[in-house]
């Protein structure tokens, strides 16, 4: 873990505020890793973290090395629970919550025509997902405190997160009253409550991801009331050699064969490091606390995840 111990301390603690922590960023930037690492850190601190994975993926199974993460939260170790949102289960919950007579609720949930309707209808999946998040937010522990704290939501892509943030707007005026209206109002209030919710951004130290993050930030700041949290830059490469790259160029003129090939690898790694630093420097323009997470050369096992979590959590 040599790389990890050298990592800088950000001093920013994303777990300190906002029980609902949302994470977004373009696909492939490593959101699931950041979310899992922070959940491990919350578990280490004795909190009751829950990871909610959206989009029917299997990332959390892989990160935590468990057989299955389904609709009900499962213990994935280290004090962390994780779940996926499955729509048919969520529909059953929803109907059960709103139809007091159990037999009737069952009948609705089992009606084949309604099942077809839900399969095909727009918005149903999104509304059910909101309902499920609200339900998990409201769950109580035996001691009366929140059952889940924090709740970390791993959206599967930037567009997905934006769509959720826009849901209340999309349905404005369309649903004047009733349970769905209350759900949407509740979600709007939750999103814009700075004590309850944070939206964290995840990116990579490369030109395009950084550019997209700058654009996403501006869009979020201009159009959405959600309070932004931290900016996580994932897989930041360490400097591969401390010396002057010019010395390598000079040496390359004098060597050939294996040593020259090795030196060219080193030269390229130095260039990549410089490019990553330059890309990150552009993020200085954003008014968000920044957390740089090191590139791991080891497999992402629990030890690595825990170490990464400490850095992501402020580097205590």
């Amino acid at each position, binding site marked *: 873990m040599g790389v990890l111990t050298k990592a800088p301390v950000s001093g920013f603690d994303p777990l300190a505020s906002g029980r609902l922590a949302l994470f977004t960023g373009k696909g492939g930037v*490593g959101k699931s890793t950041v979310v899992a690492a922070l959940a491990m850190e919350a578990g280490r601190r004795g909190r009751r973290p829950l990871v909610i994975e959206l989009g029917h*993926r299997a990332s959390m199974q892989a*990160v935590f090395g468990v057989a299955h993460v389904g609709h009900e939260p499962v213990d994935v170790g280290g004090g962390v629970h994780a779940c996926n949102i499955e729509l048919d289960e969520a529909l059953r919950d929803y109907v059960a919550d709103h139809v007091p007579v159990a037999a009737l609720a069952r009948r609705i949930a*089992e009606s084949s*025509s309604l099942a077809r309707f839900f399969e095909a209808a*727009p918005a149903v*999946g999104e509304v059910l997902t909101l309902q499920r998040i609200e339900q998990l937010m409201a769950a109580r522990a035996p001691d009366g405190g929140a059952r889940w704290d924090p709740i970390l939501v791993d959206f599967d892509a930037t567009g997905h997160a934006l769509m959720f943030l826009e849901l209340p707007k999309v349905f404005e005026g369309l649903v004047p009253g009733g349970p769905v209206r209350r759900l949407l109002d509740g979600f709007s209030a939750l999103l814009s409550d700075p004590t309850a919710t944070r939206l964290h951004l995840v990116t990579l130290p490369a030109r395009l991801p950084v550019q997209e993050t700058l654009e996403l930030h501006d869009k979020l700041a201009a159009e959405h009331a959600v309070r932004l949290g931290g900016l996580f830059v994932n897989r930041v490469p360490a400097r591969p050699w401390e010396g002057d790259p010019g010395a390598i160029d000079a*040496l390359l003129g004098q060597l050939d064969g294996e040593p020259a*090939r090795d*030196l060219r690898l080193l030269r390229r790694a130095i260039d990549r490091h410089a490019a990553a630093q330059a890309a990150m420097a552009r993020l200085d323009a954003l008014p968000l606390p920044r957390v740089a997470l090191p590139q791991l050369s080891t497999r992402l096992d629990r030890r690595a995840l825990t170490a990464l979590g400490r850095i992501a959590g402020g580097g205590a």
Partner: protein
Amino acid sequence: MSLVELLEGRRLLVCVGPGGVGKTTLGAALAIAAARRGQRVAVITIDPARRLADALGLDGLDDALRPVAGVGPGTLHAAMLDTKASYDALIHRVTGDPDARRRILDNRVYQSFSRTLARSHAYVAMERLHDVLDGGYDLVVLDTPPTRSALDILDAPARLVRFLDERVLGAFLGHGGRGGAASWLKSKGTEVALRLFGALVGDGLMQELAGFFEVFFHLRTGFAERAASVQDALRADGTAFVLVSAPRATHLADAAYLRDGLLERGAPIEAVLFNRAFHADERGQPVGAAAPYAAEAVLPDPSDRVAASALRAAQALRGRLAVENAALDRAMRGLVAGVPRAHVRLRFPLLDEEPATVEALEQLLASAAVV
């Protein structure tokens, strides 16, 4: 089997995979390769990175197919699938009466459906695919949205056909439909269920939804026919699915989920491609282990401590990259083992810059190594 054989005699390649692995990039590269072999090719991309869109001549203003220059002797047309634009075009095409058209375009459920909602993407991709398959191309390459939604594209035709069953839709709209509707309506459970659904979502949404489904009710025959024909095309002999992943644990797990979902649906996965899958040397070859040597022994000036330090760092770097490459290889083989039918198993190098020109895409394809 090589990439050439994958392209040979194909009519449709469907690229599926988790988000962020470079499906669009590899899909575009495959399309270019086919055009280079003299085929008339169309590629439908979804949300390409801007520089790739530029390279393909897509300006993002609409979703029309546009020719890509410099890929001869064949031809390549590329389109970026824009859900809203594609829906509006569809409504214009199928609705002759301007008033009816206006009613549809102004319907709020239609607007949110066509603009924002995940599932609608699958329907429109299906419609678009239908058009392009009829467009006189030798090969169509279809890019898909990440993971779960890729399965939606497979499921969408059947789901829509089931839903457009006039008994279901008719009852929802209060039409009662024709034919078997009466018996269906006698089902008390359905009636109660629909009434309760109305109470749950409220009258406003119920009315807008009714208006929205009204559209589909009138379009249902055409929709159903196209859905059925796309469903056939997805299962035809000339169709192959290309599973694209990257070798990170999370990507592999998502890809395995997708693989299992595709196999369950009988989709033929003929190729598994891994992007950003190995550290390459300057010739694009995977970095492997090498026999160690003493830095001082190869230096012109053995007392040059800076040079010795650089060489030691370089050797250590190569060692690390070789170990990582070996670990990545092992990880990839696990995914591939579950797709015995996939004869094309290739990995592509980690690049310093994402390829964003026709040349860079061709170069990427040329640096493929076997898994």
